[in-house]
């Protein structure tokens, strides 16, 4: 048993890795700028040196300047860099959007473009040369190493001091287009001198290249944080994702787990009932009603429930429940018990809307499972011993009959998690589902990834628990 659990846990790692890889690729290859309101005017938000600079820093901070999965930037050619410079400087005919793209490309290339930029410092095309000088200075700046370390070692401090000093020199090596040609020439000479001194840093050995090929990428940086259970920071609110996620879990899990438990509590007796009364009108009636319920879309039922029974209903007599949300606004003044009751009162309608759909499958499987078992010899033996029917069904048959609907649990979990999105949307419950819909609209990658990876983990463990619960219900099943 222990080895089985261990093996399953280990198998989860490649599955999880695969899922994170796929999600990561989908998100990062999709069009749209992260952190920028998608319906907002992009040109507006990109205008102005300050915004552009802060966006650059933002990109660096979240590693958005890195290639997604594999890094081949060390093989960038001089002509590619020159082309980008030309369009960034506006030498070649470009639209404003193309210019911004070229600038971003150059910024992203960073230190990989330094040798080529240095070679272009004497380009006969003056705007290209100026652009080369500008981007060389930007690309040459080095980030501090481990800047948030609270207790840096003497070595690290010395290293960072050196980087700081170098960056300070580099920052002086700039000119504006209005400067005289002499000033420009002296700055360019300064840049060249700097490059000659540090040339070695920009030559990569094969080992270096291989390392960078795999690890100087967004995906690698993301995973480096992930192994420390760090899902990063929301790109929009700049708050760490994990605490928010945990606070949202309260809502989503109570909804989905609650509705699952409720579904089993209702479906099992119904299934047993229709198995015991097999073929009667009762059996057929239950099956038919559940089948109809199964075909009703949950958002339709939720909307109808709200329309009829909520505080906003036209039928004043039926205004039993609130219009949505998790708790009343003045819930803080209630006693603990009162708060619980308040939440329960808010959850009645969402729970109904979430639960009824899964009843049909569950009770059908329960019915079939029990029917399979009822014909077994040991049930006949139990009857022959003169045990009461209640005892025969409840004690002898039910346990084995439960097996098939346990298999369903693992499959229901992803569906329930997905279904909670709609329910949370309709009832305005601030859980994971609502959060992820907002995040998707704002291209908040870290939040989307965190929510989806987290629900993947939930599903993975749900599947494991399902398999383990077989052994609990049926001692014949052993995992060796």
């Amino acid at each position, binding site marked *: 048993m222990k080895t089985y659990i261990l093996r399953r846990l280990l198998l989860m790692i490649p599955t999880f890795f695969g899922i994170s890889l796929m999600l990561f690729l989908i998100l990062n290859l999709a069009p749209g700028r992260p952190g920028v309101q998608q319906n907002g005017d992009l040109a507006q938000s990109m205008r102005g040196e300050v915004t552009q600079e802060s966006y650059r820093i933002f990109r660096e901070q979240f590693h958005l300047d890195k290639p997604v999965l594999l890094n081949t930037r060390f093989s960038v050619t001089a002509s590619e860099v020159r082309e980008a410079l030309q369009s960034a400087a506006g030498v070649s005919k470009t639209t404003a959007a193309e210019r911004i793209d070229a600038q971003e490309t150059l910024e992203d290339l960073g230190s990989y473009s330094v040798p080529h930029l240095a070679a272009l410092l004497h380009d006969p095309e003056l705007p290209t040369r100026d652009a080369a000088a500008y981007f060389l200075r930007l690309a040459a700046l080095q980030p501090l190493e481990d800047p948030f370390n609270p207790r840096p070692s003497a070595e690290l401090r010395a290293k960072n001091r050196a980087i700081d000093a170098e960056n300070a020199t580099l920052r002086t090596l700039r000119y504006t287009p209005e400067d005289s040609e002499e000033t420009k020439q002296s700055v360019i000479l300064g840049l060249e001198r700097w490059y000659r001194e540090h040339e070695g840093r920009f030559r990569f050995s094969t080992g270096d290249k291989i390392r960078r090929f795999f690890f100087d990428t967004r995906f690698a940086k993301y995973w480096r944080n992930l192994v420390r259970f760090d899902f990063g920071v929301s790109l929009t609110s700049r708050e760490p994702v994990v605490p928010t996620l945990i606070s949202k879990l309260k809502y989503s899990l109570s909804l989905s787990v609650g509705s699952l438990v409720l579904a089993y509590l209702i479906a099992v007796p119904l299934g047993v009932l229709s198995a015991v009364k097999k073929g009667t009108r009762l059996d057929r009636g239950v099956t038919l009603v559940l089948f109809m319920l199964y075909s009703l879309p949950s*958002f339709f039922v939720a909307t109808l429930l709200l329309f009829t029974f909520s505080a906003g209903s036209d039928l004043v007599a039926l205004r039993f429940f609130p219009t949505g949300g998790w708790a009343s606004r003045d819930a803080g003044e209630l006693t603990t018990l009162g708060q619980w009751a308040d939440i329960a009162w808010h959850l009645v309608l969402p729970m109904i809307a979430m639960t009824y759909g899964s009843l049909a499958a569950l009770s059908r499987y329960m019915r079939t499972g029990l029917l399979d078992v009822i014909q077994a010899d040991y049930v006949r033996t139990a009857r022959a011993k003169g045990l009461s029917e209640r005892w025969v069904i409840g004690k002898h048959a039910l346990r084995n009959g439960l097996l098939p609907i346990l298999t369903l649990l693992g499959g229901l979990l992803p569906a329930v998690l*997905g279904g909670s*999105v709609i329910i949370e949307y309709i009832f305005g419950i601030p859980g994971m589902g609502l959060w992820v819909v907002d995040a998707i609209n704002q291209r908040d990658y870290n939040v989307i990834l965190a929510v989806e990876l987290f629900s993947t983990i939930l599903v993975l463990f749900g599947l494991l628990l399902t398999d383990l619960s077989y052994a609990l219900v049926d001692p014949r099943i052993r995992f060796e």
Partner: protein
Amino acid sequence: MSAPVPPDATRTSYSTLVARELRKDRLAMLGLKAVIGLVALAIGAPLLVSNQPFLLRDASGLWSPWLRGLFDRLVFESAVDIFFNLLLLLAPFVALGAWALGRAKPELAAKRGRFLRGMGWVFVAVFCALAPERFGSLENPLHYSHQVQNYRIVASEARAAGHPLFAVFPPHPFSYKETDPTRSLLAPGAEHWLGTDTEGRDVFARMLYGTRISLSIGIVAVGLYVLIGIVVGALAGFFGGWIDSLLSRLIEIMICFPTFFLILTLAALIRERSIFHVMFIIGITSWTGVARLVRAEFLKHKGLEYVQAARALGIPVRRIIFGHILPNASAPVLVSATFGIASAILVESSLAFLGIGDPTVASWGETLNDGRLEQRLWLILGPGLAIFFVVTVFNLVGEGLRDALDPKLRR
């Protein structure tokens, strides 16, 4: 000469048996009839609802704006509609052709199935050609748009001016996309049978044309994922070994995905998404069930004698997989596809409900969300019941098929 066989005995194939079994199931037959009715409704929608008159006499003489409007992107915004209109024009000819083929020469009757199948592929090809808005920088040449007037308004203005035009309109002369701010949120009445939505669009028209969207979503998305599932499952089940381990891992990964989140993310990330994107997204995310079924069937079948015989005869592997095993393994796929259509329709309307659908098509989910926000019962009930009906119908057929394919299950 072979001994004479009673003609019926030779034709008792597996599918005939299943059809016979299915015919016994009253509910499933009812569902099947409803499906056929829905398809007919979807194809014939312009005959009932259109703001283009069948016949009109104006300055340019007697002509049919309706016929010209059938393929006009300004009248029917979505390529799905253009496709269904094409079906409307061609379906009678195809049916006539099939009938004539049987009538003219009895020995050709057997070829009718092949003829219909061929026509089916032609329609699939046309559908694929209609789907993209543009090929690279080239606009899709099949998309025809012409400045079209709203002839209902033209006719009523002419009547008000005192010189009425001769015009024959469909029974419900509205379009699903014509907006009118003065008619916003009208209750159901004689003119607007099911009322209007916030933008003043006729709900009955949107419901009827929504049938087209739902049906095509269901069929296309499911067709796509059945295709993917069959290929993946067949490869994994037939070859086994490392191919199986690899593909099984892939299947497992896809199962652990919270699929609805994935669909949501994919749909939201596409700019200018069309209904075809939604179909595609549902198709590429939901194939795991079919793949598992097919894999299991192939594992079972590949050791059987007929496969061994086929192998011994030196038949190429591709033909063994698709010609020999697949027909025997396709029964559970058929059942799961029927249920799949129902759930694909549900997913699409959920997306539209969340506002992540294609805003240019008449989707039931969108109208329902409108009703939720505006608290109008006629905007909630209509689409809700329509979705319920379609989903029920496909589920009924699915249940019937399952029982017919495996009568042991029926208890």
